[in-house]
């Protein structure tokens, strides 16, 4: 897709490595957030721990 000489260009390579590092940092940050949900007790009980059978919290009607 990219011309052969561009792929050998050192600046092009550095830019790609920086992009990859940025994406890796973003993925790790999202994973970190995945272990620290900021949710209500109702949400945790019904969706995460599944200790209640019916949604006990606030609802939205559409």
């Amino acid at each position, binding site marked *: 897709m990219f011309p052969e000489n561009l792929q050998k260009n050192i600046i092009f390579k550095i830019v790609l*490595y920086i992009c*990859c590092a940025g994406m890796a940092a973003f993925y790790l940050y999202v*994973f970190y957030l995945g272990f620290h949900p900021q*949710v209500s007790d109702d949400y945790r009980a019904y969706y995460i721990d*599944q200790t209640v059978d019916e*949604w006990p919290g*606030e609802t*939205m009607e559409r």
Partner: protein
Amino acid sequence: MKKTKNENLKILFYVGLLFLASRLLLIMTGCIYNYLTEDYSKTWDLLYHFDAEWYTSIIDHGYMNLPRPDGQASYAFYPLYPMIVKFIKHFLPETYTANQIGILVSNFCIYVAAVISVKFSRLLHKEDTGYFFAFLLFFAPHSMYFSMTYTEAMFMLFTIAFFYVCYQKKFLAAAVFACLAALTRIVGIFLVFSLLIFMYQADYEKVTLKNMIAFIKGIFLNPLRLFEIMICPLGIFGYLYYLYRLVGDVWASAHIEVAWHHSYNNLFKALYMNLLSPGSGASSQYWSMWGVLGFVLIGYLIYKKYYAEALFGLLSIVVPLNTDVLAASRYVMGNVVFYIALYEMLNKKQTAKIVVMNSSIVIYCVLLYMWFSENCFFVF
């Protein structure tokens, strides 16, 4: 150059004919349904059931930050398809509903996917015309999902495009298609493993530990290759972050599944229990059988040495079936690799092909009729 252009035009024309024939059959089934029920509903209204209602809700109102009283919420559905429909809706008169535009987008996607499928089959078998693949996309049982406001058509487009460019070793394009597929349906994320297999096969003939170590090393030494792998999950991680901002839970789209059905947390248990009893409703046995058929087709892909396709197919049915068999028919027939398996299995067997083609048309119409009647969860 001129020969290729003429060939492409020919493919566009013949695939267009197949497409029109299938949609004519769809509309005709709608007419029969209207006649037998002594009612009149437009075809796009007959197609508008189940998940289509969720997608139009996202298109018209965006994602909900609170669930409905039954615990269900729209963030179980992935965003690329509704985003594109919403974008197109901006350019059309207000008289067009989200459902109508969704149907247009889906039909356009499956038409393009069918064109690519013909080129893909010619890439695999030079002597082949490839139209049988397109036929399967338009007429196979459960292919009706490709004609309505469901994500299946767009997902099919990105996945067939992914495999097509992978066979040409265009891995950056493949990575972009994988990224788009994952943003359309979560199982698209598994294309990254298929991409790795294609990359490995491009560099090495044999699977040895030495080659594998050299391959992994090569990924880190070649920034373009690393970049290609890294962009596959970009879209889906963006959506996960959005969910965190919306409801405070990165895994909200997975956690919300509990509101639809209980989880068996075991693939074999889910298949076995639903084969024996109506665990997931009246269609339990039917869905379980689709799950079993899915595994048979994956086995056939492995036998034919389509390892990248087999791995993608395996992961994309094991993960949902681990929870429940609900809508397993859609998971199987909405995934390109099972069409590749069917195509490979039947293409050179003329009699079997004719039997399958004829029975597909009949089953396609029956399932459409059941879909129109809405009260049958057989199709879902």
